[in-house]
């Protein structure tokens, strides 16, 4: 199918954008930044086009379902939300330094989706449990949460790198990373957006589960891991209230939080539970 071919090429688009962002960080020439943004935006545009194409294709196959129904499609959408959210943040903050830290996530998700032999890129019809109007809202809210947490992860890595930038260091790369206070603030904003979205994702999931399985909460491993993630980010948000707990705690907790996100997303497929349709 043409959409999967386009999507596999977009993998390289994000990789290219990442390289230009990296060049910008090392060389500091603004032209690299402009090229990077251009490549990222074109990739995102093509990415959106391919996703819509896939949606249309599913109608042609007589299924007519949103492209969020298996692991392949969810990875594609994950990459989309990350690059979309990143470009918004870049545009709002007028700062291109995070691209080198965030776009690799989009690239990796695309590469995993397109080139892993275990992942089928076919459009598969929906099993009864997934035939619900809640599918779209649940998936969109969850993945925007994951993407926001992905960005927060990027900012946290940058935060720790920035700490290496002392008076005596001569690394221009480190010098170009924004000040720790700014990173901390951006990190907080991403965690707040992610937390809101994750909450919405859990709530929509609960309403859906209540319809499909007859209970809104059942301690299924995926549900439990989403709660664990929620608790960790709740801790991140509260840690800002503790006097003397600098950005370091928050950055560290955000990194741990993102690992929880990854377990919620992927790891849970190896644990028994009802969410197993997301495995292939």
């Amino acid at each position: 199918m043409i959409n999967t071919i386009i999507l596999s090429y977009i993998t390289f688009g994000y990789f290219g954008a990442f390289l230009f962002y990296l060049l910008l960080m090392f060389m500091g020439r603004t032209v690299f930044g402009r090229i990077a943004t251009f490549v990222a935006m074109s990739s995102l545009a093509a990415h959106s086009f391919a996703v819509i194409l896939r949606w249309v294709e599913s109608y042609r196959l007589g299924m007519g379902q949103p492209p969020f129904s298996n692991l392949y499609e969810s990875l594609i959408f994950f990459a989309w939300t990350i690059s979309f959210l990143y470009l918004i943040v870049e545009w709002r903050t007028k700062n291109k330094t995070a691209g080198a830290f965030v776009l690799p996530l989009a690239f990796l998700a695309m590469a995993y989706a397109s080139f892993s032999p275990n992942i089928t890129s076919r459009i598969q019809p929906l099993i009864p449990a997934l035939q619900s109007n809640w599918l779209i809202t649940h998936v969109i809210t969850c993945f925007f949460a994951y993407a926001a947490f992905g960005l927060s992860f990027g900012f946290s890595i940058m935060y720790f790198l920035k700490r290496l930038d002392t008076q005596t260091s001569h690394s221009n790369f480190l010098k170009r990373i924004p000040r720790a206070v700014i990173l901390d603030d951006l990190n907080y904003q991403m965690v707040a957006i992610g937390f809101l979205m994750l909450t919405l994702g859990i709530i929509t999931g609960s309403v859906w589960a209540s319809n499909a399985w007859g209970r809104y909460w059942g301690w299924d491993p995926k549900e439990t891991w989403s709660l664990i993630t929620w608790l960790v980010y709740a801790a991140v948000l509260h840690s800002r209230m503790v006097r003397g707990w600098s950005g370091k705690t928050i950055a560290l907790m955000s990194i741990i939080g993102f690992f929880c996100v990854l377990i919620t997303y992927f790891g849970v497929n190896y644990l028994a539970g009802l969410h197993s349709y997301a495995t292939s």
Partner: protein
Amino acid sequence: MTTTQSKVHTQGVWRFFSSVKLTFVLLVILAVVSILGTLIPQMPQRESVEFAQRLSPGTFQLFSLLNLFDMYHSVWFRLLMGLLALNLIICSLDRFPATWKRFSAAPRADRNKPFQGLSSDRSFFISESTKVGASRVAHFLADTYKKVARVDAADSAYFFGEKGRYAHFGVYIVHLSVLIILVGGLVGSFFGFEAFVQILEGEKVSTAFIRNKRIPFDLGFEVRCDKFFVDFYESGAPKEFRSDLTFLLNGRAVKTASVRVNHPVEFEGLTFHQSTYESVPGQRIHLKISTKPGHAEKINLVVEQGKPVQLPGGEGHFQVAEMRMMGPAPAALISIQPGQGKETRFWIFKDYETVKQRLPPEMLRSPKFNPAAFEPYRFYLDGVETGYATGLQVSRDPGVPIVWIGCFLMIGGFFVTFFMSHRRIWVRVSSDGSGSRISVAGTTSKNPVGLERELGQLTADLKARSHGTEQKA
């Protein structure tokens, strides 16, 4: 214990529970222990028993003691949640008076402190008098802020406006919503239940079984499964499960409904969800009978197991005595009772050709497997209609509406907490040489970047108005 001592103790306890550090620690502990339950398969999963059997007796005892096979319902897990709830309540109570003060405080408009260290681009010069400048500022601010306080001094005028005072309560809304959700969960666990019924097509039941406990539960009405449908995609993946149900009160059918996955049905306060299904050999069997010579003509018959049917030629009766799977193929035991003489019994198979390859020929030569053992007939098994038994979850949870209210409140609370802030704006018009100077300053409860943007915009707007009128003049 004396009263002062107990007071000291209460204060200590209060201080302990009102700390955000405790919140942080409890959140992290809850997160960490929750992981355990995703690694140890929880009851009532089948894996849980298998997992428990692999443990050494000592470990098993320890795990059982700690309730690790059903840890989310254990006392200690609930205790942790209770501690978090207590922490949340005391934290909120502890901080509320200060919040109320910030909410209700009305700062004076003629303060100079906010203007200390003001950056140069937050003030500008106009060539008019303070009076003219102040009246223009007053007009402009009245459009932007709801209530604007004004204080006039000798050579200057001060204005104060604010926005989003209610933002201070966002956190309390979120905390309240957490408590409401927990209450909803408790209500569900005390007054709700989950039960399960299995109904064969065409049959009715009035008893369900409480999940995990196998306690019978009287529904108070009868449910009949009229039909169960299952549909598959070409790939073999399931497409649809559907049970057509009829609900009977005192033997009278009062409601018919189809239950599908994602489309539960409610009756008398109980909700029915499509949960499982089982295919069972049905009662109706499709047969063909032919007669000698040539066996050219075949008669189609649908018979029910165990019910005698007359032979086409009237020589007696036959019936399907038993149905069984023999290897891959269904087999029927035909029993023929002629008018006179002995009973003849033999097995017939569906798909005889494959059976011939699978079973030993000596066996098939035996009269027990001869479909033409009773002259002049020959029997063929065309198929068995599969019947289904539908598995339905029957539940009632009065806590659900409470939980949804909590969820709504939580989302609302987040919007207030994350996206609203209490912004206070001061504008000062003071005489400056031949004209006057307008300065803009402000404070915010959060999001300083947003405040800077607002102050910048405000300064630019005021400047544009002032200079606009100046040029006209």
